[in-house]
């Protein structure tokens, strides 16, 4: 288990093989604070099928060192873009069976718009930029999951000129 803290911000990025406790991670960000008005918790879960085929498990490979660095860069960008009070990202690796959690993003802010937007931004970038690769295990063997164009376009929308607060900053 690895933990990294970004200076002066309540931000944690952790990669681990073990399951995580989403409620406990969210509670950790809000404990003892009176300035929190919104907590968004996103959990990505391993489905029991991939493109209609039942699967036995997913195995996630990652690039140690770069995965942490890349996620931290996106957390720092989210903190720069939205008035966040806390961010936690936990990404599992290794073998994960259907029904188990894969990834957790928790964002905390005074008002909901920042927490919602930042959680979505972080998930879109985790999908396309964090160096993780999923391998699907079925009864007929193992195959690597293909990247989805829909994930690329979801991430690309955050690059478009933005109206409102971000544009004014």
């Amino acid at each position, binding site marked *: 288990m690895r933990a990294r803290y970004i200076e002066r911000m309540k931000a944690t990025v952790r990669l681990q093989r073990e399951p995580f406790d989403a409620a406990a991670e969210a509670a950790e960000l809000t404990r003892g604070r009176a300035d929190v008005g919104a907590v968004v918790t996103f959990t*990505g879960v391993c489905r029991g099928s991939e493109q209609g085929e039942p699967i036995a498990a997913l195995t*996630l*490979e*990652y*690039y140690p*060192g*770069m*995965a942490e*660095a*890349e996620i931290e860069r996106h957390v720092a960008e989210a903190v720069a873009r939205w008035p966040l009070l806390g961010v936690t990202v936990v*990404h599992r690796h290794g073998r994960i069976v259907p029904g188990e959690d*894969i*990834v957790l993003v928790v964002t905390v802010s005074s008002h909901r718009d920042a927490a919602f937007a930042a959680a979505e931004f972080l*998930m879109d970038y*985790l*999908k*396309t*930029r*964090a*160096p*993780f*690769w*999923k*391998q699907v295990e079925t009864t007929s063997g193992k195959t*690597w*999951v*293909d*990247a*989805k164009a829909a*994930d690329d376009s979801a991430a690309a929308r955050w690059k478009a000129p933005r109206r409102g607060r971000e544009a004014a900053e």
Partner: protein
Amino acid sequence: MSTRLRYFAWVRERIGKPEELIEMPSGVRTVGELMAWLASRGEEYAHAFENPNVIRAAIDHHHVRSDAAIKGAGEIAFFPPMTGG
């Protein structure tokens, strides 16, 4: 000076090893040129780099494009498009 190369997912499987140290040939200046040189090293490399347009690269833990200069790189990684999250 030797450079560490790292391979992930099906790039690693096709090449048959997760990493190696190489002496960078003179004349190889960009990530794209390095992929072309690697592809000429044998069947397993040719298979891994048969479609260089789909291969992603990183230099010292930062994503780079194939026209990125490799001068000064300590570690260069090659991998398929990412599927995390």
